[in-house]
C-alpha cells in the first residue's frame, strides 16, 4: 500500500510541471493569437477611415475642378428657373441677361454652383458638402464650430483636417480642404482685399461611414473566424502534445515499477537460493549423521564421531542464521546458471565467524 502510494505520488510529481508548462504555453499561444487578431482589426479599422478619406478628397478635388472650370469663364450663364434665381450677393455688371429669343439668363459664380451641386449630392448620396470662409460674403456661408477650428488651423499652415463626426445619430467622416484664391477668383473677390495665394476659405465634405463600416464588419467577421481556427489548431496541437507526453511519462513510470518488481523478485529468488544452499548443506550432514547414528545404535556401536559432526553442523547452521540477520549490503555470487546472495559477503557479522571459504 505504501509503495503503491509513493508511485502515485511519483507520477503526480512528474506530471505537475508538465501541466504548468502546457498551461503557460496555452496562455502564451492565446495571447499571441488574440494580439494578432486585435492588431489586424485595428489595421482594418484604420484602413476603413483611410478609404473614406480618399473618397472625401476625390469629391473635394472634383468640386474644385468644376469650380475652376466656372471661374475660368469668370462665371457661367444659366437659364433662370425656380431653383436658380439670380445671386443677390453677386454684384457684377451684366449679371442678368436675355437671349435674343427672350430667355432670361443669370450668371452663376463658382460658389453658387457648388452649393447647388452639394444639394443634389446630399439628396442622392447623403454626402454633406459645405463651402465656407471665416470672412464670408454670404452670411449663410459662416463655418460651424468644427469648420471654424479647421479654418483657423489652415491659416496657420495646415492643408487638411479630418475626423469622425456623429451628425443626427449617423457616423460621418468629415474632411475639409483649403480653397486658395487664384488670379481668376480675384475678379469677384479682390474687392474683399484678397491677393493671389491667400486662403479664401475651405470646402468640407461629410461622408456617411455606414457603407464603409459594413464592409469593415464583414472583414472583421472573417478575421474572427480565421483567427478562431488558427487558435484552435494551435490549441489542439498543444493539448495533443500534452496528453502524448503524459502518456509517455506514465508508461515510463509503470515500466520502472515493473522493472523494480522484477528486481525485487530477482532479489527474493537470490535470497531463497542462498538460504536453501547454505542451510541444505549442513541439513544434509545432520540428516546423514542421524541416520547413521540410528543404524549404529541398533548395532551398539560408538556414535561419538557422528555426534560431534552433528554438533559442528548445528553450530554452522547457527552461524548462517546469524549472518542472515546481519545482512547489510547486496552481494551475490554465481550459482549454477544464476546467482544467489553471498550471505558471507553481504553480512557484517564478525568476519572470523564466517563460513569457511569453500564457495569461492
Amino acid at each position, binding site marked *: 500500500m505504501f509503495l503503491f502510494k509513493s508511485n502515485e505520488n511519483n507520477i503526480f510529481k512528474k506530471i505537475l510541471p508538465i501541466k504548468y508548462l502546457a498551461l503557460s504555453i496555452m496562455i502564451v499561444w492565446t495571447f499571441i493569437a488574440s494580439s494578432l487578431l486585435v492588431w489586424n482589426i485595428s489595421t482594418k479599422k484604420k484602413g476603413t477611415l483611410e478609404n473614406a478619406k480618399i473618397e472625401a478628397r476625390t469629391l473635394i478635388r472634383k468640386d474644385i475642378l468644376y469650380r475652376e472650370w466656372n471661374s475660368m469663364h469668370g462665371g457661367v450663364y444659366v437659364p433662370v428657373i425656380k431653383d436658380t434665381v439670380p445671386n443677390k450677393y453677386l454684384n457684377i455688371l451684366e449679371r442678368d441677361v436675355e437671349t435674343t429669343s427672350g430667355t432670361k439668363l443669370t450668371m452663376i459664380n463658382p460658389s453658387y454652383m457648388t452649393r447647388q451641386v452639394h444639394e443634389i449630392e446630399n439628396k442622392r448620396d447623403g454626402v454633406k458638402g459645405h463651402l465656407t470662409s471665416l470672412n464670408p460674403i454670404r452670411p449663410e456661408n459662416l463655418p460651424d464650430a468644427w469648420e471654424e477650428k479647421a479654418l483657423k488651423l489652415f491659416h496657420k499652415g495646415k492643408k487638411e483636417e479630418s475626423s469622425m463626426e456623429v451628425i443626427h445619430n449617423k457616423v460621418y467622416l468629415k474632411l475639409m480642404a483649403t480653397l486658395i484664391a487664384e488670379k481668376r477668383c480675384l475678379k469677384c473677390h479682390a474687392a474683399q482685399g484678397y491677393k493671389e495665394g491667400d486662403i479664401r476659405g475651405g470646402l468640407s465634405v461629410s461622408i456617411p461611414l455606414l457603407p464603409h463600416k459594413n464592409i469593415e464588419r464583414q472583414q472583421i467577421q472573417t478575421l474572427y473566424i480565421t483567427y478562431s481556427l488558427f487558435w484552435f489548431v494551435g490549441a489542439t496541437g498543444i493539448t495533443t502534445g500534452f496528453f502524448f507526453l503524459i502518456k509517455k511519462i506514465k508508461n515510463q513510470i509503470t515500466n520502472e515499477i515493473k522493472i523494480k518488481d522484477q528486481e525485487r523478485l530477482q532479489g527474493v529468488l537470490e535470497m*531463497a*537460493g542462498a538460504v536453501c544452499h547454505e542451510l541444505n548443506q549442513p541439513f544434509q550432514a545432520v540428516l546423514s*549423521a542421524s*541416520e547413521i547414528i540410528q*543404524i549404529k545404535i541398533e548395532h551398539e556401536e560408538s556414535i561419538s564421531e557422528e555426534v560431534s559432526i552433528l554438533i*559442528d553442523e548445528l553450530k554452522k547452521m547457527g552461524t548462517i542464521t546469524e549472518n542472515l540477520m546481519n545482512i547489510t549490503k547486496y552481494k551475490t555470487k554465481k550459482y*549454477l546458471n544464476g546467482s544467489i546472495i553471498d550471505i558471507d559477503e553481504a553480512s557484517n557479522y564478525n568476519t572470523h565467524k564466517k563460513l569457511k571459504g569453500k564457495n569461492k
Partner: protein
Amino acid sequence: MKEKNILIVDDEPSVLRLFKLFFLRAGYNVLTAESGEEAIELLEEEKILVFFLDLRLPKMSGLELCREIKKSIPMAIIYAITGYASLFELSDCRVAGFDDYFNKPVSLPVLLKVTEEAFNKIERWRKT
C-alpha cells in the same frame, strides 16, 4: 559383478565422510572427491559406473563434470544432489546427462535404494 564402485563428489568433507561410511557399511566400494578435477583423476584410475555429484562445486561445476563423465563412460549412471536449483537448472541437468536428481537433504536409505537399482540396471545391460 565384481567391483561395486561408486564415486561421490561433494565439496563438504563432513557429507563425504558420512556418505562414505554409510555406503561402505552397505557393501559398496566408495570413492570420494571434493572437486570435479579430483573426480576426473579418479576416473582414469578406477572403473566407476555409479556417481553422485553435487551440482555446485569449486571451479568445475557438477554439470560440466557430468558431461565429462558421460563422454568417457557412456554407460555411467549419474545422480545429481543439489542444495538449490530452479526448474530451468533441473532441465539443464537432464540435458547434461544426469539420470535423476535429489534435493538436499536427501535420506541415505533413499540413495541406497537408487544405488541398488543402478547396479541392477548395469547387471541387466551386461547380460544382453
